[in-house]
Structure formats: structure tokens, C-alpha cells
């Protein structure tokens, strides 16, 4: 079983990212903005959450946001490849489409986890501390979340015919889902309909699980979080495997 072709597709995406230094700086800026401008700013007005201040509370959420943006970015790069022709080179090669999807999901997730992990650099600056175990466990959760998000990105990319559609997707789907996932505020005392939305939002469970690992506090049972996350991940990956099959 020759996995070298899968590796090389994965490797190319990593190499391209690494060569585009501006992308790295951009992806680091967003968490900086949220942690310092938003997080530190709101901290005094926010009562403690299970012994943690606001910045500590949203730290997992900021990482989750990085994961989302990276996943969307990797989906955009697929559309880029399609528009500028390189995807044809991959599709005409003797490699099954499924392996191409897996390679893309893995490369997107790798980049997402790397960029999410970089956010840990800012932890000392906001007086948040993690043990090595916590960081490692976080990486596992981040990887699962990223696989799900990247697969979702692949499904979307397969249907989009241009870049413009992604702007709409970001504004009308991704950002609302993010704000309703408990990433930036605890899901307590919400009106009924809002609460329902957060319950069916898959991001909610991933964020909660991340917060469990990083801070030890959680809103839902750890087991249900894991189950939902794995289920969501499997569903998205399956969808992605099907979506690229019918692309012409």
C-alpha cells in the first residue's frame, strides 16, 4: 500500500503554507487581538467562572477560532487549486479520490493544530498556565475538531464555484456558529430558542471539551462531548469523501 502519493499531497500544502510567511503572521494576529484587546479588556467587567477570569475562560475559544479560520483557509486553497488548474493534475493522476480527500483533510488539520498550538505562546502573557499533559491532550482534541472542520470545508469547497461564496458562508454560517458555541461566554441563562441552537451546534461540544482539558471546567458531561465530537468528525469526513467523488 503506497502512501507516498498521499504524503506528497499533504506535504505540498504544508510547504506552501510555510513559504507564505504573511499567512503565518496573519493567523497569529487574530488570537492576539482577541486575547488582549477583547479578553483583557472585558476581564474586569466579568465575574469569575469556576475560579477563572475571562481571559482564561475564552482561551480555548480563541484557539477554536484559529482552528475554524485555518479550516476555511484550507478549503479556499482547494478552490484556488481548482481555479488555477493544479487540482486537475491531482485528479488525472492514478490515485483514488478518497485518498486525495484524506490527504487534504490531514494537511488542513495539521496546519490548524500547528496554528492553534502557537496560541499557547501567549498563555504566559495573560497569566494562564498549562501543564504539558494539558497541552498534549488539547492537541488531540484540536486535531479532532480540525478534521471535522476541514472536512466541512472540503464539502463546501466542492460545491462552491468561486471564492465569493465563501465570504457569505463566513458571515452567515461560521461566525454565528462560533458565537453560539460557548467560546466567548458561558451558556447559562440563555433564552430558550438561543439555548436550543447552541445545543445542536457541533462546535459547542468541541469547545466544551477543549475547555475541560485546558481548564478543568465543563458545562456538559465529558463523555457526551467526546461522543458528539467523534460523531461530528465522522459525519463530516464521510461527507467530504462523497462530495469530491462527483466533482467533474
Amino acid at each position, binding site marked *: 500500500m503506497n502512501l507516498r*502519493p498521499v504524503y*506528497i499531497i499533504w506535504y505540498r500544502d504544508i510547504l*506552501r503554507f510555510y513559504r507564505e510567511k504573511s499567512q503565518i503572521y496573519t493567523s497569529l494576529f487574530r488570537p492576539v487581538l482577541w486575547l488582549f484587546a477583547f479578553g483583557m479588556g472585558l476581564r474586569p467587567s466579568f465575574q469569575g467562572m469556576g475560579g477563572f477570569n475571562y481571559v482564561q475562560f475564552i482561551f480555548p475559544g480563541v484557539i477554536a477560532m484559529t482552528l475554524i479560520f485555518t479550516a476555511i483557509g484550507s478549503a479556499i486553497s482547494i478552490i484556488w487549486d481548482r481555479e488555477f488548474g493544479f487540482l486537475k493534475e491531482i485528479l*488525472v*493522476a492514478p490515485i483514488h479520490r478518497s485518498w486525495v480527500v484524506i490527504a487534504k483533510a490531514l494537511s488542513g488539520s495539521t496546519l490548524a493544530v500547528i496554528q492553534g498550538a502557537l496560541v499557547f505562546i501567549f498563555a504566559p502573557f495573560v497569566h494562564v498556565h498549562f501543564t504539558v499533559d494539558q497541552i498534549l491532550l488539547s492537541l488531540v482534541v484540536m486535531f479532532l475538531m480540525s478534521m471535522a472542520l476541514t472536512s466541512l470545508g472540503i464539502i463546501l469547497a466542492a460545491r462552491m464555484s468561486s471564492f465569493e461564496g465563501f465570504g457569505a458562508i463566513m458571515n452567515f454560517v461560521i461566525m454565528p456558529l462560533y458565537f453560539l458555541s460557548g467560546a466567548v461566554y458561558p451558556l447559562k441563562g440563555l433564552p430558550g430558542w438561543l439555548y436550543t441552537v447552541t445545543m445542536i451546534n457541533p462546535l459547542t461540544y468541541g469547545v466544551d471539551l477543549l475547555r475541560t482539558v485546558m481548564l478543568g471546567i465543563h458545562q456538559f458531561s465529558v463523555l457526551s462531548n467526546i461522543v458528539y465530537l467523534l460523531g461530528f468528525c465522522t459525519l463530516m469526513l464521510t461527507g467530504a469523501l462523497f462530495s469530491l467523488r462527483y466533482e467533474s
Partner: protein
Amino acid sequence: MDSIIQVENLTRDYQSFRAVDNISFSVNPGTTFGFLGPNGAGKTTTIKMLCTLLRPTSGSATVAGYNVLTDPMKVRQSLGIIFQDPTLDDRLTAYENLKFHGILYGWHGPNLEKQIGEMLELVSLSDKKDDFVRTFSGGMKRRLELARGLIHTPKILFLDEPTIGLDPQTRVHLWDYFARLKKEREITLFLTTHYMEEAENCDKIAIMDHGKIVAMDTPSRLKSQLQGTLIFLKTEDDVKTKEFLKQRYQLTAEDDEGGIVFEVNAPEKWLPNFLKDSPIPVVKLNLQRPSLEDVFIHLTGREIRDEEGTWLSSARALMRKNRHGGRR
């Protein structure tokens, strides 16, 4: 000799129209086969079906002995393809583009390195191997794509409009590479084009229009269907010459830029007599034998929109139309 490409009743429909309409043909190994036709004739769609990028609506195709529907992976391994638009990664170097391709096709290690070196050498890009492709000119990119398509030693090379958008000099150079390929590696070339001169380089061509094959044969046999040769003449008195041609030979000559033009069969016999008998001295003389453009006009009543559109070809079209009164 078994054909290396065998197509039978291949059809491809889209919602509103039929892009490829029940075509059948075969290609012998080691030959150059061309699809000639205007844009929109169905050439690119056919190539896409042959390299398993598109499923046929009906019909069958066998490439290198493998069926495109049941054995797509083996088909893909046997062929290399250069698309109309470049499909290189601008952000990688030339070497990286070739290595990526090699690994994708199952090559690796010293064998792959050797292949990369040889292919770069073949297209004279060895000294540029570590340059980023975004710094390459159009011609260089096309050469690199040629090198890339050959890395995995395919039996067939598909070329979709290989020289479109390139200047004439680069075109000639590219065809030099193709000629060397054929001689040194016995590769079958399958190309689509709307350039007449390019089709002339093929061993066999199929003329395609509106999804159908309207003619298929060697270029010379196709051209021999038409017998007339155009003669372009400038004399010291063109008006008198026209009259002379009419009265003596019943030939109608048209006015053309800088002279007159008319058509004659077997000019080798006719011309010496004319030159001897004509009272008006000839200043300039030019012959043009039937070209594939004429074949196309003859078959379809239209010109292929040749981007260079020489005045000779439009004059010829004018002559043909007047002679045959439109579509024959």
C-alpha cells in the same frame, strides 16, 4: 498492429446540448493523431473522457488496452496530459513540480531523480530546476509541463491545444521536442488543435465540428480530395489579364490585394503554357496548393477561426464560396 486508443460511439451530453456526438476512431501506437476543429467542437470534452476526467454518457473508449470506465487507474498510469491552461504550481520550483508528479504516479528514490534530470535536460530547463515556476515565461511553463507529463514514462501523451497562446518561435521549438520524443521514445501523441499548420504535422487527423467527426484521414489524402490550386498573379495590366483568362481559358479571376487570384487544376501543366501565351508580362506569381483550411471549408462551409487569419486564407475562402456557391 493493435490500436493504442480505440473509441466506439462515444457520446457526452450536458443538460442542454450534446458536446460529443457518437464518435468512433482508433489510433495506432507511435503515431501522431490530431483532432482539428474550431473552439466548441468537442475536442477538449473528448480528451477529458479519454483521460478519465469525465464520464461518457454512452459508448466506450480503450486507452493503452484499458477501458476508461472499468480500469481508470491503469488508464491514467499509461498516459500523460498537458492541458490547455497551465496546471503547474507557481509557488513550487520546477524540480518540485516534477518530483510531486513523479511521486503521485508511484515513482520515488534514485529512479525518480534520474528521470527528473533527464526530462529537464530534454526540455532544456536543467539550469532552472530550482527556480520558482512563477518566474517562468509561457513557453518555459509549457516545456516544463511537457517534461512533467513524461516523468512516469507514459505510452501516450495527450496535448490539448499545446501551442495556444505561444509565439510562433516557441511553437516551432515545442514541435521540435515532440518530433524528438516520437523518434527517441516511440510515444503516441494525441493532440487537439485549431491551428492548421499544427494539424499538418500529424500522421492522421480527424476533423471535428459540432461534436461530430466530419472527416478522418491523413492530411495529404484529405487535401487531395480538393484539386484546385490557387494562383495569385500580378501583371502589368491586371484588367487585360482577367479578360485574357476568361476568353482563352474560361477562367474567372477575382481581384485581390495587389493582384488577381484564380483557381486551376494541375497547374504544372497549365502554367508554362499560360506564361508562354499571355501577352501581358507577369510581375509576381504565387501558387497555393489546397490546405486543411480548404478541406474544412469544403466539408463544413465555414472557416476555422484561425487566429492569424492570413489574407491568403480569406482569399481562398472567397474563391471557394464563389466557385461552389457556398456549401457543396
